[in-house]
């Protein structure tokens, strides 16, 4: 099996899993697909080395999250200021688009308001069930930063979706 075939097999088997994480990071499926495709490209670029790593799944996640942060950094530099921004996202393009499920909408809406890195930390910690150490490793930041980002993110979530959290408490 050539390394391309091997990579295609690996990518196909992990695509859905990565898309879910990407969706939570991006808030819509189109951007999530772009992010996963970018991550796949980066992985294939160095696949001959990647395939030898002990935990390729963890590596794939790491690439995905780092691609997300890098892409957003670049976006910031490419942003052109305009006079006004419409308040509402176009149908099907905003955070939470594509789901009727109320919990997903609440979640993605809340995540959208978090800074990029805090969002990545929260998704890794609470969606992918990464430990503080694993999250720090995946994002290339210190464990202290992970803890402080998590605390700030949770505080922000508390102020923004407190009612939803209380609903969960009532469950």
């Amino acid at each position, binding site marked *: 099996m050539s390394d391309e075939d091997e*990579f295609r097999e690996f990518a196909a088997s992990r695509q*859905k899993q990565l898309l879910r994480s990407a969706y939570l990071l991006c808030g819509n499926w189109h951007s999530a697909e772009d992010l996963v495709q*970018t991550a796949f490209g980066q992985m*294939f670029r160095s696949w001959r080395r990647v395939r030898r790593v002990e935990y390729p799944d963890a590596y794939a996640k790491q690439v995905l999250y780092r691609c997300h942060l890098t892409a957003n950094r670049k976006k910031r530099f490419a942003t052109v200021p305009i006079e006004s921004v419409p308040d509402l996202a176009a149908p099907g393009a905003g955070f939470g688009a594509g789901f009727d499920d109320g919990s997903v909408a609440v979640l993605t809406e809340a995540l959208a308001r978090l800074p990029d890195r805090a969002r990545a930390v929260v998704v890794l910690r*609470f969606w992918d069930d990464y430990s503080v150490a694993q999250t720090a490793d995946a994002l290339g930041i210190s464990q202290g930063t992970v803890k402080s980002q998590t605390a700030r993110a949770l505080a922000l979530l508390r102020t923004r979706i407190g009612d939803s959290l209380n609903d969960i408490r009532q469950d």
Partner: protein
Amino acid sequence: MTEQDTERVKALFDQADLDDVPTTRDLIGPAVAWGHGRRRRDRWTAVGVTGAVAAVAVAGVVALRPGADGAAPVGPGSSMSAPQASPSIQRELTTLRPFLPAGYSLTCQNTEGAFCEMFVLTGPTGGTSLMQWSAGVDLPPPAGPTTLVDAVHIHKATALLPVGAGARTFANGSMAISAYDVEARNMASAAAHDLTDPAEIVYNQVAYTFTPKGSTRTYGISMSELVKELPWKNGKSEFPDDHARLGYNPDGPVLSPEQFDQMASAPGLRAALDQVVIWGNQR
């Protein structure tokens, strides 16, 4: 934020039903195509080729064996789709072949579009170099990289590999030569722990940039090839076609600066190179 709130956020994530993942397009195919392109660029970036040469010198590491018809059928262990013997590739080869020295042959190893991305030049003794052509206006000769990765070294002429970095003057113009030696550990197909001597020089790359007298145009070629077998610990390569993928000639580039000067001085080559580079830019 209490521990209880943390649990609630976890529960919120747990409740989110993301089972239905829509896929609207192929994500893997374009990623693989992009990755192939980046691998080629990585090879030259690692060597630090800059400026005019870097613009065209997108070297490839592909598992294709050149065929007699100028196109490259898929070889064993190939990781690339085979380039088609398209009319445009045949046109490039037909345009360039008449200018080669006697006994040399030119084939196409790989293409990403309708045109040849990487040529293979075969010398009279059977040695091969991967090759690319360049042409430009007002391009200064390549000054060489300011920094090199630690596994790449500027090559100085030796008895075994006589083409060293520097400049030559010929009757019809001047030639800037950049030349590099690459250690085995820097080869994309090899990891240091797989090699008996990761620091062994196994690969050589040169670029000749010819500037005709009184002209601002430059014409160049870049060549690269294995000059030694990679020192695999298990005695054999994971890739059975290293020679076809990377070129192989123990004497270094199959074309000497003198030969390229003769080619560059031949009537018509410059126009032919201009044409091929324009075609190539259409990819």
